[in-house]
């Protein structure tokens, strides 16, 4: 029997949703200031409208505070799912008004892609986009990759934010409280930001000969995008624009840092248990799958005869696998070339995108811990079949210490894996229904569902509306890893049919 939500449930949800939107209003002030300083008056007016819209909607929906401070798990999940739908809608206002998008839906696609740190884009003529608008696109990625909810938890929700934290796809509390964990994540990100902008800006200035201002601009925006494994870039030719192995290497460092769980960041930060972390199932799984998919890609590229020496193969293979596996979506070649990658190269990149980074990181995809658990379940099953009936197969694994693989954990990992496979299959089917070949449709669908961002050429301003909406939903579901979306669906159904 479904229980109809009471008015207090609605008050709790709308109150915290409003808080998240108020945080976004504050975030929108940053590009407004940028535009005013840069005397970009047209974008400045759009950012004022965006900040105003976030503030007004935020204040209106949080007008009636809840009687008691009880943000349950279900409430938190619903807040997160709604926040990830409404924030892109309001965040797309300056994009839609910029004249660089064919429709509001295209702008919404870009904002959703930004907030989910996917990196796919439908922007027209990005090479002439206002710097403040480009900053906004990259800032959306940074805020989304870090978690807009995380920001809100840090500022408003305090100790009641655990449910929102979980809804945002973050399962582990590094510190005793959610608020202190959120602050630690922001601290780590802040330090990486300073280091990242200095490193990337220095390469741009000293190595590439850019002007100081442009070096800082490229450094800041590329850091935003790489540290949250986003994929938006300053210029239309992605990271290939820089023609620099040093810039690529620096970008890879931040992509890998972004794909690491914050538990790993914490261990490195505290200089404790580093060796233990190297033995963890998740770390080992990521290392194995990254190496495996890189071999596949390099063999595939070698078979296709696209590169004429080992150095070229290594550079291109390494960069694109790091980009795909961390679900970043940066490229060194145009999407028209990626579309030609058949055979093993295609298998390598698609598999890497599907597997993704670590749990509780900015990366998307299935996540290394789940991949490791599924592999462990399969291995144990095979052992049980092969060993005598009386044999006991211990189901244990290393993850922050020795853990027993419970049936519940195994089922959860298998279920999410199946859901991801199903989501990719649906997107592929819709793509094929519009006449795209299987390989291209599968590539784009996996990219959307895992927030990968790489494209084989379907993403574009002229793609069919239904396909565009499908990719938007895939990005949303993939980023929230289904649970929060199912909670929202359940909430709506119980509101209609419950007693």
């Amino acid at each position, binding site marked *: 029997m479904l229980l109809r939500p009471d008015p207090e449930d609605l008050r709790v949800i709308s109150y915290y949703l409003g808080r998240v939107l108020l945080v976004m209003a504050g975030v929108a002030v940053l590009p407004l200031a940028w535009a005013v300083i840069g005397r970009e008056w047209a974008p400045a007016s*759009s950012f*004022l409208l965006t900040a*105003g819209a976030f503030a007004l909607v935020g204040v*209106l929906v949080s007008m009636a505070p809840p009687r008691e401070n009880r943000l349950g798990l279900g409430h938190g999940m619903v807040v997160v799912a709604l926040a990830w739908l409404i924030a892109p809608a309001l965040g797309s206002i300056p994009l839609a008004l910029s004249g660089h998008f064919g429709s509001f839906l295209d702008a919404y696609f870009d904002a959703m892609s930004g907030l989910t740190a996917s990196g796919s884009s439908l922007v027209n003529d990005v090479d*002439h986009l206002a710097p403040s608008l480009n900053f906004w696109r990259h800032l959306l990625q940074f805020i989304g990759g870090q978690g807009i909810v995380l920001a809100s938890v840090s500022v408003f929700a305090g100790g009641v934010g655990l449910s929102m934290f979980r809804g945002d796809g973050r399962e582990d509390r590094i510190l005793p409280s959610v608020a202190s964990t959120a602050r630690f994540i922001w601290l780590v990100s802040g330090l990486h930001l300073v280091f990242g902008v200095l490193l990337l800006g220095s390469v741009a200035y000293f190595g590439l000969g850019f002007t100081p201002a442009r070096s800082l601009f490229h450094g800041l925006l590329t850091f935003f995008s790489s540290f949250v494994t986003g994929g938006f870039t300053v210029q239309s030719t992605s990271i290939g624009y820089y023609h620099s192995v040093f810039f690529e290497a620096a970008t890879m460092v931040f992509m890998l840092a972004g794909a690491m769980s914050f538990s790993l960041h914490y261990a490195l930060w505290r200089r404790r248990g580093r060796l233990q972390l190297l033995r963890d199932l998740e770390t080992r799984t990521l290392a194995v799958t990254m190496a495996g998919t890189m071999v596949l890609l390099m063999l595939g590229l070698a078979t296709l005869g696209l590169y004429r020496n080992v150095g070229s193969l290594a550079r291109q293979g390494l960069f694109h696998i790091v980009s795909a596996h961390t679900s970043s979506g940066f490229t060194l070649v145009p999407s028209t070339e990626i579309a030609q990658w058949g055979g093993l190269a295609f298998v390598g990149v698609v598999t890497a995108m599907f597997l993704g980074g670590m749990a509780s990181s900015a990366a998307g995809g299935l996540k290394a811990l789940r991949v490791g658990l599924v592999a462990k379940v399969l291995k144990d099953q095979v052992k049980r079949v092969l060993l005598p009936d009386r044999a006991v197969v211990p189901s244990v694994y290393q993850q922050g210490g020795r853990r027993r693989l419970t049936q519940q954990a195994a089922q959860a990992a298998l279920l999410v894996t199946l859901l991801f496979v199903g989501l990719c299959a649906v997107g592929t089917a819709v793509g094929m229904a519009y006449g795209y070949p299987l390989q291209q449709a599968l590539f784009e669908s996996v990219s959307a569902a895992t927030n990968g961002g790489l494209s084989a050429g379907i993403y574009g301003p002229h793609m069919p509306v239904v396909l565009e909406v499908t990719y938007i939903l895939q990005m949303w579901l993939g980023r929230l890893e289904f649970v929060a979306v199912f909670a929202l669906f359940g909430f709506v159904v119980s509101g209609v049919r419950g007693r």
Partner: protein
Amino acid sequence: MTARRLLSILAIVASALLGMAPAAAAQTVGPFDSERVSVADLLADPEAYTAMEVEVWGELVGDFGRRDDGTVWTQLNGDAYAETPLLADGSLAGANLGIGVRIPAGLFPDLDRPGGYRVRGPLVVLQGMWRYHDPDRGGESYLDVTGVELLETSLALEEGVRWVPLGLGAGFLALAGLVAVRTRRRAG
């Protein structure tokens, strides 16, 4: 005897000149006689133009990266926005079509700024060799420029204030402030 010798010498010189003619003709095929292609052609089938001398029209955008090795790297866009920028009533035509170009500093003309926001960059015709997956540069693809013809210098464009969003935004913020104050008073 002298005349016969002279004739022989002339005949040898004439045949040598005739023999050298194709070679001389090949040498005069400078960059300006190279095959005219568009950026779209290069992106659509990059392998087809490998190591070929080509001539490409477009707009220089992004940055002029002056490197220590005496080259300038920038991006050449050959799309609809180079012809008619969006801010000059151009229409949406999809993503940019751009390639990387490497220009020797000695050939690089004195240009003030590349294309970007409110700037239509310099329009040029570049001649050079298309290096597809260059093994000497880790598999990069780019145009190795040997000749630059500047057609038009950069063009400044205007984009004014949008008054409706500005007014609405100010109104929304004022309204949000009012609602917040009233809510707080009621709660207090």
